């Protein structure tokens, strides 16, 4: 199993919830202090460099108009880390292709970073959460279709090498697609795609053989969607697999670990008004029919409102002493039927540099060696068989 350090790069210095309407979309950016921002960006990048030195892999993501994540252009931070790190795999999870104006630009950015890093890019492609359609103005009824057309364009741009070609799709028309550079990894970097509720999309990710990732879901739900992925998986020639992200804090005592986890759980206690959580057409009709009936309570809001102990029992928080964290990961691994990538939100909210690095270090030195050898999923093994047969 591979472990990945992750922070959304939050800007937490905002007024209390009762004094603001939203932490996303509409919060005035006069509340952003650029000097503080300068310190925060450099601090978070330092922590990624430390993750590399500790032998961990790296995951970045992006959001827009949000204090929860000010990594507003993730390819930029990934490019910096391509130069400043040596060994870590560099996962961007992901490029919001459904919300961006030009998928070919994404193909170029990723190919460049792949070349600079010597083939360390793991390329996420995401539909984007509900809030994102306000900043991007992508039509919320079409983000799924845009995601898949964008992936098709990027994949072709990476893998067609015989000169310029045209693409006339539903959403994008491009002529003379012929990216220089092409990716360092041949035939192309792996694609990762996220999901939680949309079963059809999870099946499609599996049938296309991409890596599937899900975040902060209770283990019973993770089991269901990982099973769905396993059942539908078809190899595309590159290793598939499954990834899960909980909040993670490792410390010398359970008390200290829960205190750290509680600070990271700032991420679960964000505030956004209803109109930004459910733009029209983002979720399926049945969800909105239930909303009209008053039986729709929001995706994971109910789970997230629970206490730390409950969240730890559900696998949404993994926190404790190194021995306890090893046990929690192995329990989760068994409960969800195995997975390949342990994505760790090890920093959020006001959790400071010193305590973030303390937890990362303890994890890397005392936990990671014990979980590294957990067998890779059925999908990765299936891939090995494909490769063996080909040789």
């Amino acid at each position, binding site marked *: 199993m591979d472990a990945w350090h992750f922070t959304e790069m939050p800007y937490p210095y905002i007024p209390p919830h009762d004094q603001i309407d939203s932490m996303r979309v509409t919060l005035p950016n006069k509340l952003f202090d650029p000097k503080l921002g300068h310190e925060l960006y450099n601090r978070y990048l330092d922590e990624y460099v430390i993750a590399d030195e500790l032998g961990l892999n790296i995951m970045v993501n992006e959001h827009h108009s949000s204090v929860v994540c000010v990594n507003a252009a993730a390819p930029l931070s990934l490019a910096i880390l391509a130069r400043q790190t040596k060994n870590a795999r560099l996962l961007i999870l992901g490029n919001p292709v459904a919300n961006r104006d030009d998928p070919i630009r994404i193909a170029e950015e990723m190919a460049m970073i792949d070349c600079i890093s010597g083939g360390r890019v793991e390329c996420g492609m995401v539909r984007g959460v509900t809030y994102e359609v306000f900043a991007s103005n992508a039509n919320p009824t079409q983000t799924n279709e845009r995601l898949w057309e964008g992936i098709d364009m990027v994949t072709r741009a990476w893998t067609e090498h015989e000169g310029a070609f045209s693409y006339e799709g539903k959403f994008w028309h491009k002529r003379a697609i012929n990216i220089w550079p092409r990716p360092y990894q041949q035939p192309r970097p792996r694609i990762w795609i996220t999901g939680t509720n949309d079963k059809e999309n999870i099946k499609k990710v599996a049938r296309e053989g991409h890596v599937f990732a899900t975040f902060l879901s209770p283990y019973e739900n993770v089991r269901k969607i990982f099973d769905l992925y396993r059942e539908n998986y078809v190899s595309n020639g590159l290793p598939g697999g499954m990834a899960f992200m909980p909040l993670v804090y490792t410390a010398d005592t359970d008390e200290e670990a829960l205190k750290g986890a509680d600070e990271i759980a700032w991420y679960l206690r964000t505030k956004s008004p209803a109109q930004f959580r459910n733009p029209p057409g983002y979720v399926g009709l049945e969800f*909105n029919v239930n909303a009209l009936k008053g039986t729709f309570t929001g995706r994971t809001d109910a789970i997230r409102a629970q206490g730390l102990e409950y969240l730890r029992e559900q696998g949404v928080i993994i926190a404790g002493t190194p021995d306890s964290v090893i046990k929690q990961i192995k329990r989760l691994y068994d409960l969800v039927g195995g997975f390949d990538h342990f994505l760790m939100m090890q920093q959020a909210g006001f959790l400071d540099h010193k305590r973030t690095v303390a937890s990362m270090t303890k994890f890397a030195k005392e936990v990671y060696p014990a979980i590294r050898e957990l067998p890779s999923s059925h999908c990765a093994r299936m891939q090995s068989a494909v490769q063996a047969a080909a040789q």
Partner: protein
Amino acid sequence: MRKRPRKSLMSQTLKIEDAEIEVLRLGAGPPIVLLESEEQLERDLPFVAELAKSHDIIIPSPIGFGRSNRPDWVTNMDDISYLYLDMLRLLNISKATLVGFSLGGWIAAEMATKNDTHFKNLILVDPYGVKHGGPTDSDIADIWVLPQAEVTRRKWCDPANGKRDFASMPEEQLYIIARNTETFAKYCWNPYMHNPKLKKRLHGITIPAHLIWGAQDGIVDVAYGEKYRAAIPGATMTIIPEAAHLPHIERPDAFLRDLRNHI
């Protein structure tokens, strides 16, 4: 013309290429093509039954609304208005009064700019569809960014008029409502609630046009309506007091009186 008037709404499905358009008919007499608002609140209102005593009322559902199907290629009001013009030709309707409410008003304006030979006259009630101002002017209040309570306040003079009892509706009706909301966003998210070309096409409307506007409409205000009116040659406008975006629901008597004066 039918000899016997239709006493209740009759439904038929009209197929044009792969589009299947639900068309409701009521009454008999000179035709009125009635294009509903995005919530399709009009079909059961008393004024429709009242008009049907002396008119043939034709109420189609746009693609993706009501029981019309939703072929993928239909993405904007251009597509809808061309389909509706095809529909009128197939139904052999001429000399009709074309009345549109809110989103339906936008569709009616689009149809009249493309081909107004089917129509005797045009009546628009608080329509969307045109952008008058500059890039940072919010001509049309953003119903997808404003809090729901604020949208309600802007849409209704008395918010009680907008209350709908979803809990007692059958499942099928709720699916239609949810799909209407979704389709509305598919067509109107970007560009927001307007066709950038329409403003430069309105001059071509040659039939008599009349606008009816709710004095307190906070989604598209009276000043917006005045500019809309000025863009259509010879158009007139009546402002209905104590009404917001849907004056025909909030002030039905005043609305029907004015409508009758202009049919």
